[in-house]
């Protein structure tokens, strides 16, 4: 009897734990559109780190983009040691998975929609985007320059 009761209690506790924790990663669209439902819950969010890492005391702000929206992540500085690349024109940022508390309107941060990270996992490393100079554009520029020069010469003459 006691064993049964303990099993039920344990089962209920696990259920309760599952209720406000989403093991599978949730998209930014889902988070923003259903912010009230997820507010205060632990969520898993995956995306590319973009822009600057803004250090603020013991913590830092990183912005993580899942290709639809970027969401601000408030994270302890020691957790971002592994982040090497952040997304920009020249680089593809590291792909990370954040587990943390989602806030629809964060009291600590002036009402921002954000995630307070508890842990971060680097899924894949970013890289420098390969750069090839556009030779077609160079030819086009030279061609147009010749036409403009010719045009100016003709205009000066006539």
């Amino acid at each position, binding site marked *: 009897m006691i064993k049964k009761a303990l099993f039920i209690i344990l089962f209920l506790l696990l259920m309760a734990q599952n209720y406000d924790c989403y093991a599978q990663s949730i998209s930014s669209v889902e988070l923003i559109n259903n912010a009230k439902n997820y507010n205060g819950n632990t969520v898993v969010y995956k995306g590319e780190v973009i822009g600057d*890492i803004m250090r603020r005391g013991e913590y830092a702000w990183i912005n993580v*983009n899942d290709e639809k929206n970027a969401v*601000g992540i408030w994270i302890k500085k020691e957790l971002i040691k592994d982040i090497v690349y952040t997304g920009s*024109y020249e680089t593809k940022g590291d792909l990370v998975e954040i587990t943390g508390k989602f806030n629809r309107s964060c009291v600590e941060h*002036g*009402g921002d929609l*954000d995630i307070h990270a508890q842990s971060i996992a680097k899924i894949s490393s970013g890289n420098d985007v390969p750069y090839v100079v556009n030779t077609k554009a160079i030819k086009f520029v030279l061609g147009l320059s010749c036409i*403009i020069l010719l045009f100016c010469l003709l205009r000066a003459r006539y």
Partner: protein
Amino acid sequence: MILKPQLKDIRNIAYYLGKITIGLGFTMFVPFIIGLVFFKEINPALDFLVSAEIALLFGLILTWVCDSDKELNWIQGMVVVSLSWLVAMVLSAIPLFLSGHYKSFLDSCFETMSGFTTTGLTLVQDLDHLSYSHNLWRHLGPFIGGQGIAIIALALFMKGSVGSFRMYVGEARDEKILPNVIHTARFIWLISIVYLIIGTLALGIVGMLIGLKPQNAFFHGACVFMAGFDTAGFAPQSQNILYYHSQIFEIVTIVIIIFGSLNFNLHYQFWSGNRKELMRNIETRTFLLSVMLTFFIVTIGLNKLGVYSNALILFRKGFFQLISGHTTTGYMTIYAQQFIKEWGDLALTGIICAMALGGCVCSTAGGIKMLRVGIIFKALKQDIKTLALPEYAIITQKFHHIKTVFLEDAQTRAVLSITISYITIYVLGALIGVWCGYPVLNSLFESTSAAANVGFSCGITDASMPTILKITYIIQMWAGRLEFMSVFALFGFIVAFFRGK
């Protein structure tokens, strides 16, 4: 009888259009040089070189083929202005399209029209990976368009003439700050550049303090200033101002957008030592009252739904979006979808009212504008007095705008014509939105945002929206920025060309 325009009229228009196009071509060297020198971006620099050369060639051909030394008459001046905005939209869209961040050429045209008209609605894809050069061009657009495309040409290439005044008026600038229109154009550029330096420094320093790299801090500072002072609302990152997660950054931005929404004439008065004008002017007074009233509506709406947990957060979020909408900037510290999903109808209505009313005349702001709103209320007050007092009483109504002015019927009629035009275009755009399948309030919100050159979006503006809606918003942004008269003049000119004798 409608008179058909003659070939010499078209030549004259094309000649001035060519001059403006050459001016535009030269401005493309700014992102070319900055991109190449500071950021070592070769391919984006080539995009700008190609586009600049196309613009220069087009302008040179027009000025050569249609060489003219005649002054522009009123209709020609207006047609030059309205056409130059369309030509600028197409030519400026070339480098953006070449960046590969737009799904179609129409999308890049939408972006440039949104920039030039200081609207800020965007169809860019993957903004967070856009090059510095292309991003700078997105923000330079509002800085050029906010001051006026024709005004650049006036300030740089033209000597004082009646024709230049007609182009100046055609760009919805009916107030001369200085007696000479060329001096006025140069003054507008002077104060804009002085503010640009101060604003970039302020935002750059704040940017470094909040953790941006120095290079990015000043780049973002310049971009946010240009789009903020010119009430456009573009930002270098996809999260807009939310990207910075900083209250100080938001406060500095608020100061900049308020400065941008004030009449250039008020800036001149302030710089000349006439600081009392700020408090006495009908526009600043109406602006203050209107902000208070619309913020009250927004607060009631947000409070009723309990959107924010405390008053401080409500003020920070509510006031930022409100002032951003009222000044027709469109900077956001919330996500577009939150407007519809969380804010509720009442707060949204408050924002729509603020956007529709707009900033001051002779500023970079859009919307109906404060001087007109003030005049309408003065006229209403006069009418009520007329009804209340005996018939033989002579009732006059005056207002203070730089000088004390007696309100006349002709002035009220002109103000009402433009106001009705704005309301019509807000409603028409909303109807097309509804026809495309969007809800009424969302459609009205987006339509008002486009026509009043605000740039707020509740989620409709997207690369996947119907083409008809993209074209509608382009026309709304263009007509709203030019305050209709130049656009009407262009349509009149086209009708006269086909039906005139």
